[in-house]
């Protein structure tokens, strides 16, 4: 009974995250227009690179690589890479004290809301982007229902990895007065190493090694590989396992950071 009650709470939190974003319709339309413009530019660059090199680069021909660019635009709204500072702001104002008093772990509460937000973003921003990309230059898809299911699972895992990464960045607010520098450095590294601009498979060897040592390829490269049919069979399972490994590692880190932050926190006034 206890576990079912908890699940219901997380479900309600996810719904609240979903509805909070659904209010801003004009913002959504603006986001779709902007994402499309960037999709066209990114796709054109990658296709131009393939044309300059011959017919294919590291297993991507023109069609595969433009599909890569558009799938990236689909994920953009859901998978957090540019960071948010909601929790850091609550640490600064002291509101975090209320979160720490609740009988649920803080990261899990915010993750539930974030999954709700990401689901809405995927439906109202991602799906239209997919349609626009398909109309503009064609998009390739996962082969069958199982591959689709794994692809969608990998989006959920990517959202979770992105959330936990940002959560840890926010936790630095327990120790630092101003976390903007940490946030900026994180998002610059994340967008580059996730493969948002150029597929990670195109990186020179040393940069691929750097990327593989971070959770960032799990954010964009992995879900795209699965959803576009670039990776299937054992390769797909291996990628999912890597995502799960990062989630485990980051979740432990988030738990420890929250616990250490709680001891460190001092809220003034009353």
């Amino acid at each position: 009974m206890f576990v079912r009650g908890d699940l219901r709470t997380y479900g309600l939190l996810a719904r609240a995250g979903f509805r909070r974003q659904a209010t801003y319709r004009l913002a959504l339309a603006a986001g779709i227009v902007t994402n499309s413009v960037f999709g066209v530019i990114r796709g054109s660059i990658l296709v131009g690179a393939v044309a300059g090199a011959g017919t294919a680069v590291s297993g991507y021909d023109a069609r595969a690589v433009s599909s890569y660019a558009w799938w990236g635009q689909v994920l953009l709204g859901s998978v957090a890479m540019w960071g948010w500072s909601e929790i850091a702001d609550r640490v600064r104002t002291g509101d975090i004290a209320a979160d720490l008093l609740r009988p649920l772990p803080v990261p899990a509460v915010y993750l539930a809301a974030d999954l709700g937000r990401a689901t809405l973003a995927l439906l109202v921003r991602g799906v239209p982007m997919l349609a626009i990309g398909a109309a503009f230059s064609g998009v390739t898809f996962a082969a069958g229902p199982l591959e689709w299911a794994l692809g969608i699972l990998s989006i959920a895992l990517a959202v979770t990895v992105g959330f936990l990464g940002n959560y840890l960045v926010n936790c630095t607010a327990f120790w630092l007065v101003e976390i903007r520098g940490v946030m900026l450095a994180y998002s610059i590294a994340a967008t580059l190493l996730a493969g948002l601009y150029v597929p990670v498979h195109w990186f020179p060897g040393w940069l691929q090694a750097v990327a593989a040592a971070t959770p960032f390829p799990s954010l964009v490269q992995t879900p795209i590989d699965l959803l576009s049919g670039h990776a299937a069979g054992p390769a797909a399972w291996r990628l999912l396992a890597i995502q799960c490994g990062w989630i485990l590692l980051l979740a432990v880190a988030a738990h420890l950071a929250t616990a250490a932050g709680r001891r460190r926190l001092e809220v003034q006034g009353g």
Partner: protein
Amino acid sequence: MADLRTEAGPRAGAWAAYRSILRSRVRAQAGYRVSFATDIAATVLTGLAELTEVYVIFHNTPRLGGLNFDAALLVFALANLTFAAADLFLGHCDRLPTYVREGRIDVFYLRPLSLLGQLMTSEVSLRRLGRITVAVVVLAIALVRNEVAPTPVTMGMLALAIVAGTVLLGGLFVAVAGLQFWLVDGREFANAFTYGGAYAAQQSSLVFPDPVRIFFTFVVPAAFTAYLPTLVILGLPGGDFADPALAWWLPVAAAWVWLVALVTWRFGVRHYQGAGG
């Protein structure tokens, strides 16, 4: 402000007021040293990350849109330099919706200075100096690697590209600010023109399909800030709707953007009804 006016006439008074506003903005940023240093480091990193992107592309292909790596470096440097400079002076204009929501814009209406002038001088993003530094270093490297001869044509084009290119992109920020009076919640729409235009400007126009190239040459004339000048400086042939001779029309392209900017701004200001309160 009243004293300034009686002392030196309304025009001189306005200039003195803008100057002191700008001075206060600069001092405000330099005051928080650590925060300022972090911001500078972040913009340097952003520039380097974008440069890595270009490097990774050319790691996989010898040519992109008819340019080799060295030529692409020149396009990258010019596009980054002009955009970062425009961003330094006018980039905050796309924060107009925040000003509207916070009621700060109402304060602008009350002061005896031009609304646009106040918005333009309300902030100077000195942190962009980091990105400008990266662009200048890449520009120097690109000029050396391409063995650009210092003739009147190459140096004239370079100077024109840097000055008029900055003016053009600055105009984009203002044009978009005017639209924001309607788009308060849709501020991300503005990014399609400003950041989208800047991103397109970093590329060879020839990577784009014809309609996109025409859009970024004749509607949002981003191609004028870096790609077209590069064709002239390096003596490259270009292609359809990307003739090197077009590059000399850069001042006209900048004037076009500012014409649109002043029109959207004028209608935007008239449209504004106040945020209540």
